[in-house]
């Protein structure tokens, strides 16, 4: 009520009209749950004064699927498909993060070659993730071209996934201990082709948007967040780096041999939409660099999986001819592999930031408790504060530049 009075007074002052002739109130706008501009199921109840947002109340949980409860009943190898559906734009990172968590719990060291293969696939996933996010910022600012040009490269990455594991979006790639099979020559060919041709595509995309005046006018100073506030709100990943904090899990607590690779963590300064866009752009270049290094330094003559018979399915010909293999096969398929008691927090740098797995095992075949630290869920709560006082159309691009993925938000 007090707010309304204030607005009235201000309007009277600015327009020069007597105060009692002014009737003004905030209108309420439901942005979502299904709105074509929000790319997913997000609802924001906005209190608006004309086109200026005064207050936003996000409602989340529209695609909540109770993953944490589901995980308490599933054997460890059956939880991988659940993790696919968190951030479905970069499922392989989620899969690998989960495998590494379980490997940490059962104390398995995978061969260096597997770690490098994982790095390749995770960086490809990061490219796919950032590529969607950045091209969608273009779409929301009215530049469809970039999106149409760049999207073929995501398809090429999906082709690579497909040749490794048979799936494209919800990949379920890799196994606890390594990969399900050796990568075929075709896979390597696809990766090499991608590495050769993608830089051209990305360059073209950069030329379209990075120094484009119209694009910069729309994105610079749009939805900024300071480094202090970002840290207070638990930001991680590109959104935190855009605010100027050089925190990257790959460097801070290296996993999967990331310490072997040379790359730069790009940081922004103002944490606005343009900085978030630029950080993601640069990260794609860095990912390419990492993949090249991984291919170049890939250890030879090492297996593609660790020796963990309790979790890694034996090859079929052995199952049919060998008693032990048959027993292990049965144990794994029926979900009868026990794990030690323990409590673990493992985190990986997902597409959106620190993706954490907090796992408590009571020694049984399923986790006692599994909690996913989902970066989206944590940083999306700063959204109302970031869009306060901005225009509706700025709110839309702020959301797409934060890369809020519904699956990760709602778990």
């Amino acid at each position, binding site marked *: 009520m007090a707010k309304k009075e204030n607005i009235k007074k201000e309007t009277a002052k600015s327009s020069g009209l007597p105060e009692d002739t002014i009737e003004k109130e905030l209108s309420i706008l439901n942005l979502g749950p299904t709105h074509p501009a929000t790319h997913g199921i997000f609802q924001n109840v906005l209190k608006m004064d004309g086109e200026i947002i005064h207050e936003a109340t996000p409602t989340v*949980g529209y695609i909540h699927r109770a993953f*944490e409860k*589901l995980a308490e009943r599933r054997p460890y190898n059956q939880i991988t498909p659940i993790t696919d559906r968190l951030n479905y734009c970069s499922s392989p990172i989620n899969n690998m993060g989960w495998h590494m968590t379980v490997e*940490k719990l059962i104390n398995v060291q995978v061969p260096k070659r597997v770690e490098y293969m994982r790095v390749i696939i995770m960086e490809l996933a990061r490219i796919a993730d950032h590529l969607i996010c950045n091209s969608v910022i273009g779409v929301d600012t009215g530049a469809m071209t970039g999106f149409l040009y760049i999207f073929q490269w995501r398809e090429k990455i999906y082709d690579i996934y497909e040749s490794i594991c048979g799936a494209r979006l919800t990949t379920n790639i890799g196994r606890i201990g390594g990969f399900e099979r050796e990568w075929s020559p075709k896979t390597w060919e696809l990766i090499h082709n991608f590495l050769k041709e993608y830089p051209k595509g990305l360059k073209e995309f950069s030329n379209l948007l990075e120094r484009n005046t119209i694009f910069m006018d729309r994105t610079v100073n749009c939805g900024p967040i300071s480094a202090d506030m970002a840290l207070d709100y638990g930001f991680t990943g590109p959104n935190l780096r855009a605010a100027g904090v050089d925190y990257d899990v790959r460097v801070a*607590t290296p996993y999967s041999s990331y310490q072997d690779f040379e790359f730069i963590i790009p940081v922004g300064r103002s944490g606005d939409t343009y900085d978030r866009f630029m950080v993601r752009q640069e990260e794609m270049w860095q990912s390419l660099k990492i993949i090249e290094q991984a291919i170049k330094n890939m250890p030879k003559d090492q297996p593609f999986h660790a020796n963990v018979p309790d979790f890694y399915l034996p090859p079929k010909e052995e199952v049919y001819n060998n008693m032990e293999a048959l027993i292990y096969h049965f144990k794994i398929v029926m979900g009868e592999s026990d794990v030690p008691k323990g*409590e673990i*927090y493992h985190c990986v740098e997902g597409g959106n930031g620190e993706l954490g797995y*907090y796992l408590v095992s009571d020694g049984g075949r399923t986790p006692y408790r599994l*909690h996913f630290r989902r970066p989206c869920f944590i*940083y999306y709560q700063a959204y109302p504060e970031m869009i306060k006082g901005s225009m509706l159309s700025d709110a839309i691009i702020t959301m797409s530049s934060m890369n809020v993925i519904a699956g990760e938000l709602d778990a």
Partner: protein
Amino acid sequence: MSQEILDKVNAKLKEKFESGIEHAELPYDFATFTVSKEKIHEVLSFLKSDPDLNFHFLTDLTGFQTEDEKHLGVIYHLHNMVKNMRIRVKTFFPMSNPEIPSAVDIWAGANWMERETYDFYGVKFKGHPNLKRILNVDEMDIFPLRKEYPLEDQSRDDKSDKMFGR
């Protein structure tokens, strides 16, 4: 490295708080502290504000139920990005009185995480500005992640696990 973090934080906490630090351990190389419910807010704000420890980042906050189904817990993962130190702080309290002070005044990011914990475990965070359900529907009257609510309908017997003795 983790042992050093454990010793350092433990010494600091022991020095500052006479009681309340119930347990300090190192499961899987991760410094873990169990703090009594009465002291949790003080301990957390001390961990954040102490210039030497400087756990300025709340990585994660989540709920937990003990195996006897009589206690609930809240688990905080804190991070000092400058020195790259991580610790875990746990607190447990009986289910009959699931009330602990909110950490929203320490980290703004605790807001939704506490709402999520309330939503799934029914932990009441005292002082939270807007403690209501977040992922589940508002009309829900149970706290679904508690072990008393099994995943599948227990009256079904066609999906029994008895064969494997579990």
